């Protein structure tokens, strides 16, 4: 039963993450805003930390990344589908790596300084690592081959663009951790239909738009 609950959690949080990347990410990109850093700082960090807080299960965030990345592949809007999907999948795995030494009740982060510092580290490393992974894997997956000099020369730009994500993370993590005070409990009878319903809505909207625009 616990496994089913976890799988439903991965599905709902991964779908929400993928949905926000597809819909909000595209809106932010069209508005000419630095959507990658904004998405990582505000949304990705929120989904990853909340899911860790509520489910306390190792591997969950990696699963969420796979679900969100898969949904991103169906994104009908502008932007690089493959690169974004790879970056999202990488972010889930990188989050697990960054946080694996920390407890699931977040007891280490007693002060706001520690919370903000962890927000900076997490958001920056997620964004920068996701960016690097996509720069390495996209040419390989596309069959063109990876040229390390292309990455090396662009590294200062990648390291620079993560700064905004880091600053947002510094503000967001203390806010997200306030959710610890909430006593959210949902009955099994409602949990599964709600989780599956939310996930279905996310997928239907993204895939439905893909069909409409593709027609």
């Amino acid at each position: 039963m616990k496994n089913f609950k976890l799988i439903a959690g991965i599905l709902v949080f991964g779908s929400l993450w993928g949905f926000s990347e597809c819909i909000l990410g595209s809106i932010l990109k069209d508005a000419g805003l630095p959507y990658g850093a904004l998405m990582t700082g505000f949304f990705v960090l929120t989904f990853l930390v909340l899911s860790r807080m509520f489910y306390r299960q190792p591997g969950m965030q990696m699963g969420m990344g796979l679900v969100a990345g898969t949904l991103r592949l169906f994104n009908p809007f502008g932007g690089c589908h493959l690169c974004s999907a790879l970056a999202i999948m990488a972010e889930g795995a990188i989050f697990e790596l960054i946080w694996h030494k920390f407890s699931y009740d977040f007891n280490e982060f007693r002060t706001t300084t520690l919370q903000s510092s962890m927000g900076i580290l997490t958001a920056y490393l997620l964004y920068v690592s996701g960016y690097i992974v996509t720069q390495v894997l996209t040419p390989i997956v596309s069959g063109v081959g990876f040229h390390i000099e292309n990455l090396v020369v662009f590294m200062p730009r990648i390291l620079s663009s993560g700064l905004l994500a880091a600053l947002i993370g510094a503000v967001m993590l203390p806010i997200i951790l306030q959710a610890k005070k909430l006593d959210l409990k949902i009955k099994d009878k409602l949990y599964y239909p709600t989780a599956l319903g939310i996930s279905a809505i996310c997928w239907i909207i993204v895939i439905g738009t893909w069909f409409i625009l593709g027609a």
Partner: protein
Amino acid sequence: MGKDKRIPVLAMIVLLIGIGSTIYVQASQNNTSNIKINGQEYNIEDIFKIAEMRTIVTDNGEITGVALDDLIIKTSNICNSCNQYTFKAKDTYQQTVPWSYMQKGVITDYNRVYFQDTAHSFWVNNVVEIEVN
């Protein structure tokens, strides 16, 4: 050093890396409006006079620009299919592609390179150089 001290120190280092690289990026920005092709400087208007036009279909719609393969043929006396081509942008972004990509690629009058049926990461904005490798 415990986690209480290590995490803020690491966060400071991360912020310094971000700030330092931002300063470096701003200082090293290339502001030329010309395009260097295989070592030769060209104005974007010249490029449109030199080579044929092509329209490709991408998931961003139809894009019309100068055919990249024809541009290389007309500007460089090289074995086209033996080489790879690196597109360098103003912001230091760069991508390397084979000749088969050039045959389905265009450069627009706003210096953006597009390729048909490829990941968008190969599309390069504000191209300042096409290097033949």
